[in-house]
């Protein structure tokens, strides 16, 4: 059972490694951000599986934090270009 | 025991890559990111040496130090980024002047 969970974690890490190609390739910043979010979900899964495999229940809290806070980077990113356009809209 | 070598060597590689990036990039933001990678390497080395056989008790002292280190690293990153912004506002540049950076590199 433990070996199965470790193998599952390895498989998920391989998924992240494959997805890195999209971050490197782009082509747009939005694509890169989408991949980062995808890694976040995968990372939550890996941490949960590792918590089970290594019998370390407190790692689940780290997964909880990732699930809770991954959105912050996106909020920051979305703001990236809005100020110029948003302000232009507001001045009207 | 294998785990110790794997993570310790990874830590060394991260540290050296970060060091290289620190010298390699002119852009201040990239320098700060490289510095953070370096910090990650140092933390990883600490923990890998605290936990050589990856089972049983982990030495709590390095863990506490790394915990302190992570918070210090993020606060220093924030301050450095603020300085980088200030430089950008003053000079419109994201990098230090070439002549300056060579002097810095020599001195």
């Amino acid at each position: 059972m433990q070996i199965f969970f470790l193998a599952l974690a390895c498989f998920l890490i391989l998924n992240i490694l494959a997805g890195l190609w999209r971050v490197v390739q782009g082509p747009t910043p939005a694509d890169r951000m989408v991949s980062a979010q995808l890694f976040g979900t995968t990372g939550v899964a890996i941490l949960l599986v590792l918590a089970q495999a290594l019998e370390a229940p407190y790692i689940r809290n780290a997964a909880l934090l990732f699930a809770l806070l991954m959105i912050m980077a996106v909020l920051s990113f979305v703001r990236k270009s809005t100020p110029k356009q948003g302000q232009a809209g507001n001045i009207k | 025991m294998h785990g110790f070598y794997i993570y310790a060597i990874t830590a060394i590689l991260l540290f050296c890559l970060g060091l290289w990036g620190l010298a390699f990039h002119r852009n201040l933001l990239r320098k700060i990111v490289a510095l953070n990678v370096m910090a990650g390497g140092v933390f990883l080395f600490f923990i890998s040496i605290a936990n050589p056989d990856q089972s049983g008790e982990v030495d709590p002292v390095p863990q506490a130090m790394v915990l302190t280190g992570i918070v210090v690293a993020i606060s220093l990153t924030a301050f450095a980024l603020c300085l980088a912004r200030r430089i950008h506002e003053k000079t419109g540049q994201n990098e230090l002047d070439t002549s300056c950076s060579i002097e810095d590199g020599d001195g």
Partner: protein
Amino acid sequence: MALFLDILVAFSLVAIAWRIMRAPGHFQAVVLFITFGLLLSLAWARLNSPDIALAEAAVGAGLAGVLLLDTLRAVAQPGKVKTGAHFSWLLLPCLLLAGLLTLSIIHIQPDSQGLARAVEAGMQTTSLEYPVTAVLLDFRGYDTWLELGVLLAAVLGLLCVRRKKSIRAPLLPAPAEPVGRWLISILLPLILLVGGFLLWLGAFAPGGAFQAGVVWAAGGVLLWQAGHPSLGALPVSLWRTGAVLGFALFWLLAATALIRNEPMLTHPQAKAWILAVEYAAALSIAVCLTSLAIGGQKSEDRNQKSEVRDQRSGDRCQITNNR
């Protein structure tokens, strides 16, 4: 299988670090750095250090990404895409250094006990049940004290660079979408709750002031990202009190011990007292990190400020209309 996992994590870490250094675009490097934090926290989980995994998760997922992306936006130079780089030949000496360091660690005989035994012996004298928290707050209180000092110094440095007297940063305009507001109303209570949970957990399990402080700071930054006016409405004195509370409490501890002619930072072994210090430290870390994350903004000039205020009041009208 565990060995394979280790190799995989190690390889990904090095590969991502390499790509961070070599990436042509800055945005790509920042996104890769966020992923780097994720993999690093997997490594911490694998290395039996849930405390650090928690802190890394909170810092890497929340604060680091926000700080870097915000700065990237602020210093963007539209015409200039390629990174200026020099000294690429330095890679060789750096790899040489890596080789030398690797040679040196082969000769290390890792002491599998380290200080673990000393800490175990000391655990009987302290009223805390979890060794890492005991080291942080009791055995090596200096570290935590000076760490709070570093945070405070960073905040002061920020204020000097920005020439501001108060930590309150100009608030960003609120997002026009209802989704953002809805998200805040769901996530913020949970962030407060999870931070409190970690703080409570710290007395006997992985968790504690550092993780709780970082999580709460993430909550504060989220509030600011959503343009919620509550952070700006807090009086300056409260900000200042929050920022110095942890440091001041440690200082008081040290001073009273000296007055009572005991070694510095020895304190009455009451759990309530230690927990009070821990809670104050968490609060200070949260306030300082929040100020660091949002205080780096350029102070806006009057026009923009009034514009922000207009929009905020407009926003409020919208809320009342919705109701």
